[in-house]
């Protein structure tokens, strides 16, 4: 007589085999060379920039006929690692993700490599062995900092007098904040020893942060006549504080920032921001190109930089209607 336990085990085994078979069938359908499946894990939806980035990737995948599996990590690395593991289990053709933080990726990337699934990073870099990922599609934050410094040169033009810079930094320890600061400093050290950073503090990339920190700076460093903000949102918050202090943003205090979000462009048309170094979130098409090249075994560059431009207040009005984020 079959014992009850072995009967149950048998049922469980049958179910397990059945579901495995189902999985196998599904994977044969998608991985069989007709449609390409891309598993993408997004950081979250923490800003307008990020939303534009997500939209661009989804639209580009649709246009390129790529089957996109999208997941939102809600700013947590463990969610992202889980999503990547799911993609490995589902045997997608390519995995792509924007790392939440830069460290702690070795294990999961090795798992992807063992499953022979190529990994493409977007937007941010990781501190992991370079053999574990194929390519990075993203911005060069250090170059953005350098471009911001060169924009400031243009804004200041021939005007003489002291240049006292207040800096609103991004989230402490984040790659864009560290590298934008480094790029800006590089240009300063190389060609503008007369520029002086009088105050520097994090505004956490938010308008609220930019507004509060700038209100304090205006009290403690009234001599500041230039503001360099690591993103537009902080500059927009700072503008409100400058106005509340009875000073004129863009005139009394020159403002240079990075990103190029819609509201930033609007402020530029009003002369409140003097220049913006663009950080382009619309990297969807470049990512899909790379996915196709990688699957076709073509060689790709290790770092595919996103196409970005610089804007001065004079160009803002004509560029504004074409801004997508």
């Amino acid at each position, binding site marked *: 007589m079959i014992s009850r336990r072995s009967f149950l085990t048998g049922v469980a085994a049958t179910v397990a085999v059945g579901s495995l078979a189902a999985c196998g069938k599904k994977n044969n359908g998608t991985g069989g060379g007709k449609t390409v499946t891309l598993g993408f894990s997004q950081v979250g*939806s923490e*800003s307008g920039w990020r939303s534009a980035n997500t939209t661009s990737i989804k639209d580009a995948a649709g246009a390129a006929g790529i089957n996109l599996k999208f997941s939102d990590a809600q700013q947590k690395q463990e969610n992202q690692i889980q999503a990547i593991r799911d993609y490995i289990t589902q045997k997608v053709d390519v995995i792509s993700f924007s790392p939440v933080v830069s460290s702690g990726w070795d294990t999961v990337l090795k798992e992807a490599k063992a499953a022979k699934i190529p990994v493409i990073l977007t937007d941010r870099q990781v501190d992991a062995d370079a053999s574990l990922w194929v390519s990075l599609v993203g911005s060069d934050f250090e170059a953005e900092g350098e471009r911001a410094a060169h924009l400031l040169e243009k804004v200041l033009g021939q005007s003489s007098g002291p240049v006292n810079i207040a800096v609103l930094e991004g989230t402490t320890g984040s790659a864009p904040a560290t590298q934008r600061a480094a790029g800006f400093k590089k240009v300063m050290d190389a060609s503008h020893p007369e520029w002086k950073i009088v105050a520097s503090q994090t505004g956490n990339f938010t308008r609220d942060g930019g507004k509060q920190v700038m209100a304090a700076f205006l009290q403690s460093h009234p001599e500041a006549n230039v503001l360099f903000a690591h993103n537009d949102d902080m500059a927009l918050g700072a503008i409100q504080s400058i106005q509340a202090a009875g000073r004129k943003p863009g005139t009394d205090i020159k403002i240079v920032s990075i990103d190029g979000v819609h509201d930033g462009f609007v402020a530029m048309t009003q002369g409140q921001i003097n220049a913006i170094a663009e950080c382009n979130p619309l990297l969807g098409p470049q990512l899909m190109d790379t996915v196709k090249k990688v699957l076709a075994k073509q060689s790709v560059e290790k770092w595919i930089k996103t196409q970005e431009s610089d804007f001065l207040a004079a160009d803002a009005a004509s560029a504004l209607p074409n801004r997508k984020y």
Partner: protein
Amino acid sequence: MSLTSWRRLTRHQLFWPATILVALLLFNLPFTPGFLAVGVRNGHLYGSLVSILVFGTPLILVALGMTMVIATGGIDLSVGAVMAISGALACSYISRQPDQNAVTAALTAVALALVVSLLLGAWNGLLVARAGVQPIIATLVLMVAGRGIAQLITGGFIITVQSRPYQTIGGYLFTLPTGVFIAVAAVVGTLAVTRRTALGLLVESVGGNAEASRLAGVRAQRITILVYVFCALCAGVAGLMNSSNLANADANNAGLWIELDAILAVVIGGTPLTGGRFSLGGTVLGALILQTLKTTIYTIGVPSQANMVFEAAVVIIVCLIQSPDFRRRATAPFRGGTRTGSPPVRQPAGVDTPVEARP
């Protein structure tokens, strides 16, 4: 001043929070000589003290609601999410109006946001009081889900509004920050309702022992629901102040981590987390201390990497000074009469007795 009246003063529950606040303000003077100066710019008051009030009033509001919840022995982690939802609703409503400057549009937006805040508070209250879920878990649900709801409302984008009437809430009224009027009204109103009627006593009795209060005839469940609704309403108002001040709704960052600041403000103000007692005046001072600390970090130029460490160090010192037990031990070697090593009779819960007016 005689020794006894000095003792009575230092025994007053608000003495230490007030002293710390004044000390923190004075600490800024060597770094920013004009720190305490208040001038007029663009027809409104201007200065560091005014900035502290403008940016600190939302925290005062949130901490006020949190005090009542903590007095019942509960906690509300969802205040930041409620702030985000309230701001998101108001701004997305206004941004859809043909004339953003219409007063009726602003009023409708405010009413909409506050009604939804009330509902969210009722949800928290029902979960805690009726379903018997632990407050920290019950409100964690809304803390996580609420931000998602706010993101759905804004579509993931920052919604900017250009509504003059709406911006008054976080702006200036009769040269003063409007937030000051709102905060004063809220604090005085709450003081009157809790200390001039039996309500405060009932809240404290629920916090002391909900079951015993119920058996004694107090409608404990109803009181519990009431404090969560009040707390969410305060958070909703704070959300309006914050989004109006910035003229936008940022679902991801509005009120982010404010629940922690609010709990800290309540504790610094002398309300024990165990419930059963509360001090509204202490909470207001606690919130002002935290906002002044933030401003201090920005003005004295603490490097970004050291912000948290500096803040934590000050908060620990503040909490230690606040503890009568610690003060007793620290000053024991310098006092005559009392033998060191054997502390005098301990007061329950280790906090000075409140001396606010009782019914």
